[in-house]
């Protein structure tokens, strides 16, 4: 019991401190590519601190749904963070079938974000909500396809086991399938967390935004919660990909932690490089990219079934 509570607190501590840092590293990489010095790696912390001290402005049109969405969002990603292993710390919440709880808790958060966006009665948020609803359909398709392949590989339907927390995934046996899964999952990370080439997290033009425009009307503590939740979600998704790729288990907890942190650093740099070298896709091309992610995942499934 105390073990579980210790694990829960350790998970939340790591996630709450490292997630904004993750976003800071991405910004630093993008600045480096642009030839700039860029903001400090700790800038997201200062932003959150500023937002938590500010007063909120609410729109006359909104109801309790608007005020409740940031809370649902942050609570959902905090719950989700308990389902993945972080370095040497095992996931405190793992059971057979927990991937379904993970996906559907995210869907619950997404549902509330979408209706909070429609709550403002503005066409900007409606635009973001409509796009988010559409792209999430394709993302979930790719996600489920990946989960099918991973569950066949690891013979379980628990997220921790599927990403190779306890036993390393055998890359030498099923390398091609895992490579396809990792590729498809990277595209899903970019899509679900609103990164280029699907969405631009820096611009504030409604024509180019999906996530940013949904939270356009939030302010103060609510906006702080939303940004924090977005950062934690990105961290968690990267935290799912890193153990799949770096399937190394040293017995030593410190070495495991260093491997994990190194992997997360590499993931943030990879995201930063992709964001710096690509432009945002035209909106009607985004669905093609997501369908490519689905196709790649499907091929991973076929390869796995072929190999037996």
């Amino acid at each position: 019991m105390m073990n579980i509570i210790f694990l829960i607190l350790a998970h939340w501590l790591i996630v709450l401190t490292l997630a904004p840092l993750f976003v800071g590293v991405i910004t630093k990489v993008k600045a480096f590519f642009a030839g700039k010095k860029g903001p400090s790696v700790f800038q997201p912390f200062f932003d959150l601190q500023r937002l938590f001290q500010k007063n909120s402005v609410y729109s006359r049109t909104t109801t309790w749904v608007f005020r409740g969405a940031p809370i649902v969002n942050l609570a959902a990603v905090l719950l989700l963070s308990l389902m993945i292993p972080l370095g040497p710390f095992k996931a405190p919440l793992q059971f057979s079938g927990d991937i379904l709880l993970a996906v559907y808790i995210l869907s619950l958060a997404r549902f509330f974000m979408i209706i909070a966006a429609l709550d403002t009665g503005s066409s900007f948020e409606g635009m973001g909500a409509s796009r988010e609803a559409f792209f999430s359909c394709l993302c979930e398709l790719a996600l489920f396809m990946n989960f099918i392949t991973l569950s066949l590989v690891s013979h379980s339907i628990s997220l921790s086991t599927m990403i190779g927390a306890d036993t390393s995934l055998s890359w030498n046996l099923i390398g091609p399938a895992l490579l396809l899964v990792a590729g498809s999952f990277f595209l899903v990370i970019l899509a679900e967390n609103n990164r280029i080439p699907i969405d631009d997290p820096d611009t504030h033009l409604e024509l180019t935004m999906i996530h940013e425009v949904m939270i356009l009307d939030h302010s103060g503590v609510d906006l702080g919660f939303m940004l924090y939740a977005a950062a934690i979600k990105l961290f968690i998704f990267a935290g799912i990909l890193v153990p799949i790729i770096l399937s190394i288990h040293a017995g030593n907890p410190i070495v495991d932690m260093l491997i994990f942190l190194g992997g997360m650093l590499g993931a943030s740099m990879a995201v930063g490089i992709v964001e710096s070298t690509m432009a945002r896709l035209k909106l009607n091309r985004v669905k093609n990219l997501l369908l490519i992610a689905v196709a790649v995942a499907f091929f991973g499934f076929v390869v796995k079934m072929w190999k037996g």
Partner: protein
Amino acid sequence: MERFFQLPWQVPFGEFSLKIDSLSLMFLMAIFILVFCAGVYAVGYMREYQGRRPMGLHIFFYILFSLALVFVVLANNVILFLGAWEMMSISSYFLIVFHDEKPSVRRAGFLFLVASHCGTFLLFLMFFLMAHNGGSMNFDLISHTSFSSGLAGVVFLLAIIGFGVKAGFIPVHIWLPHAHPAAPSHISAVLSGVMIKMGIYGICRVLWILGVLPDWCGYVLLMIGVVSGVMGVLYALGQHELKKLLAYHSIENIGIIALGLGLGLLGESHHMPYLTVLGFGGALLHVLNHSIFKGLLFLGAGAVIQKTHTGEIDQMGGLAKRMPVVSILFLIGAVSICGLPLFNGFISEFIIYFGLFKGLASLPLLGAFGCGLGIIALGLMGSLALACFAKVYGTVFLGQPRSPSAVEPWGKTSSWMIVPMLVLGALCLWIGLFPRRMASLAFLGGGYLSHTDLSSLNMGIIFIPLSFIISALILFIALMVGLFGMRRIFLKGLIPSVRETWGCGFSQSSARIQYTSSSFARLIVELVKSVLLFKREGGEVRDLFPAKIKLTSSIQDASEKFFFRPLFDRLTSLSKKLDIHSIRYTQMYLMYIFLYLIFLLVWKMK
């Protein structure tokens, strides 16, 4: 668990034999809960029609309908079953055509009647085939005889089509989207929540009687589940009339139930009892869950339609501020139907997913592909349903009112209507957070259906994950409460100010620039426009100066447009040709009947 009851009955081949067992228990629970709630709701809903319409007739048929539903589930004899089935169809016809001054309602009712009887015709064939093979009209006695593989296959197909018409499988679902908007809301609730489940009950009963089925039957049900589910939710995305949209969602959920039943059948044919119990149990639990949250949604829709006098979503908006209780209850229904955690939809979908993943791991190649397809389809259905209900809830209840009908003053919603919705909402929450009771009943039903002995199985395989889910959800609620408190602390001493929505500098924002239901769903509908037969006319800018433009977009039901309407038109023209020789006088008809009776009498006397 089974109990029998018998009464003497003079009908030839029939016996008044009733049986209640673990299978019928789930359906009976759904019937009693929903019929009672809808009945109480109707007291408030129908108040405005009192004195202007024959209410007694409506109440009479409602009671008859409820009795018929109970007898369909309890019947243990072919003749009793078919008699109750017919009574159910006919009394529901009279309930649907309550607003018979509208031609659309009359047409919808007639289509319902025709579809129901086409299905019943196949059921007659099927039951007589079974009774002939079993040598008796009693379900128990028939179930003890064995069916040859070919006969079992034929009976199965007849059951799928015959009961599928009532259940709403695609492509024989075409009466559903017309009947539900036409009927008064409490009748739509009972139709959608209970009557289409009678089709599922019939299929379950036939599966129980047949026992062993050929292998391909599971795949057929799985495919029907996948197609009905995905097509149902895609059609729903294109709808802008509230009750028609909810009707298409019923088709989607019937697809989920069929998916569970297909999984159970696959488990049966491959001798994997865990798959069987998970599949059938998940399907039966979804039967109960769907009747609860669909009933809640339809009753909520009725409350909205009663006040705004329109079913068009795009005429509503901002109703959450004017009907706060109804909006919260409708939200509960919407979250449940999307299968999101905290409510009951998630539990039954979780059980079916769990079974599908198990099947993916343990079935041979074709079965594994089928299960994989099922998982993909369920995931797709979930996300599309989320998009659809975000659209519905956002357009109806949130934002700004889009038309005068959403702004005009109206009184409070009657408590007669609110209390049943509260009961249904509370049930959704209860089953979502404490599913053990209902889940074990569903597994009992599933075990009974597949003649599996549950005591030999370790049901902890599903109950342990369910208990983890419950603890995770309680932690989630605690997190939400904690974050709410933290926000309170952060905002201590500060009073949030209230302004207009940030419009990026627009000073003349109007309610008309908000997203409508068709614009919200446009991205998805246009992706699959060839499947949905999406047509868009007008809307192009032609001239140099601003002028009035008209834009219409529509989707059409392919099964109705390409198969059934041409078929009905062909039949109508054929029967018109036979009409040349019609008799003009009623007296001639009477004379022919009289002559025929005399002929029968003479023949019998020989």
